[in-house]
């Protein structure tokens, strides 16, 4: 029998604990049955399946997890969370690792996804309600993909599916909440 020593990542317990402190989920309950990976609609596009990602968190492989495509490709469809026999809220774990990656300013493997989060939230904090046309324009500028979906966007405009002007209803209340959350999270 071949025995080999596996080098565990720096801070063996820390990462699982960090995930738990953000999401309240204990990843050590996972016994690797792979039901999450089997039901995941996006696993085909991921570099690690959700099951592998949880294993990596258990082993404290922080760099692998935070630099994976997987965390940005989770669609938050909640299939894994629903089906887990150990009641591990895996979609909650994905939220937690995304939050950790963004707080550490890690360069995302799929940068357009966190750019979408950032710009959406900026949009909501400014207008109160999502101003789709503004969001699309900002995303196009930030990703420099001007021609992609241009036909689709024009057709949506023609059909009146995108409002030309933003609404400011609710903007004030939303802005107060954003400011309060920001102040508390800085502490």
């Amino acid at each position, binding site marked *: 029998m071949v025995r080999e020593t596996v080098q565990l990542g720096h801070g063996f317990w820390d990462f699982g604990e960090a995930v738990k402190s953000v999401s309240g989920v204990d990843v050590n309950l996972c016994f690797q049955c792979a039901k999450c990976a089997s039901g995941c609609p996006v696993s085909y596009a991921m570099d690690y399946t959700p099951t592998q990602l949880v294993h990596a968190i258990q082993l404290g492989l922080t760099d692998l997890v935070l630099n994976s495509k997987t965390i940005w*490709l989770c669609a938050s469809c909640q299939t894994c969370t629903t089906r887990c026999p150990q009641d591990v809220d895996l979609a909650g774990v994905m939220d937690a690792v995304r*939050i950790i990656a*963004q707080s550490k300013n890690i360069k995302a493997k799929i940068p357009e996804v966190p750019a979408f989060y950032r710009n959406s939230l900026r949009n909501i904090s400014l207008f109160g*309600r999502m101003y789709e046309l503004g969001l699309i324009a900002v995303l196009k500028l930030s990703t420099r993909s001007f021609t992609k979906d241009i036909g689709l966007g024009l057709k949506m405009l023609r059909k009146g599916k995108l409002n030309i002007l933003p*609404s400011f209803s609710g903007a004030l209340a939303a802005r107060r909440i954003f400011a309060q959350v920001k102040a508390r999270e800085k502490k």
Partner: protein
Amino acid sequence: MKYAYYPGCSLHSTAKEYDHSLRAVCSRLGIELVEIKNWFCCGSTPAHSVSRLLASALPLGNLVMMQKMGFQEVVVPCPSCFSRFKSALYRVENEPGLREEIEGVIKCGWSNGIRVYHPLEVLSEEPQLGKFASLIKRELAGLKVVCYYGCLLTRPPKVTQFDTCEYPESMDRVLKALGVATLDWCYKTDCCGASFALTRTDIVVNLSHEVLQGAKSVGADAIAVACPLCHMNLDTRQEEIEKTHGMNYELPILYFTQLMGLSFGLSSRELLLGKHFVSAERKLAEVK
């Protein structure tokens, strides 16, 4: 019957037809929907991917405004908003200290007993279901439809408490009561690609293709939906799906409320059917 109403951003923009048709059928059924004054976005996927606190504070901020208007029950037609509202309420009940933290953020407290409903929960039960027969003006019996519920209405079940999670039937119940034939199929709660519509459209094209293929393979004439994002992905991406996968589905995607409206005798114009990319008019003419 009277409920507070939280339309959410999509129903004021990309899914105006869902808003119009829902209001129209509710008024026929004598259900009054009172829009929450100055409501703001629930935060959706971006909020829960960036801040757990923000993700719960935004929905609860809206619910507090609802209570100030004297309501305890709210109807939320967008499953993404519905899921955020339900999740916020679930978390403040189950995470010690969170309620106080959120009350600090929104500078206001709230009383217990808030109920969040998706329109399907109201419309698929008595007394509403029993009222349908007397309101039907148009026969839709020739139409074969599959009901697509998407991800967030049913999942996770302990949070949303909606129907049965792997094979829901409430939309089927509503449409069957109108005489529409709803078919069994395997994709009721599969994912369409959701918010990747603005980032990784390749994922939307792949996943939505599977849903359309599933609907076609059981012989559906149309897909009935209850979610603005599912609608957008399934309806507006068919041309791209044809280019990528070589399949021309031409499957009309209708909000279940539009089918209800048609059955109650409302015109295509009133139900804003013209907003869809894939026209439903031809299919509907066939069943006249």
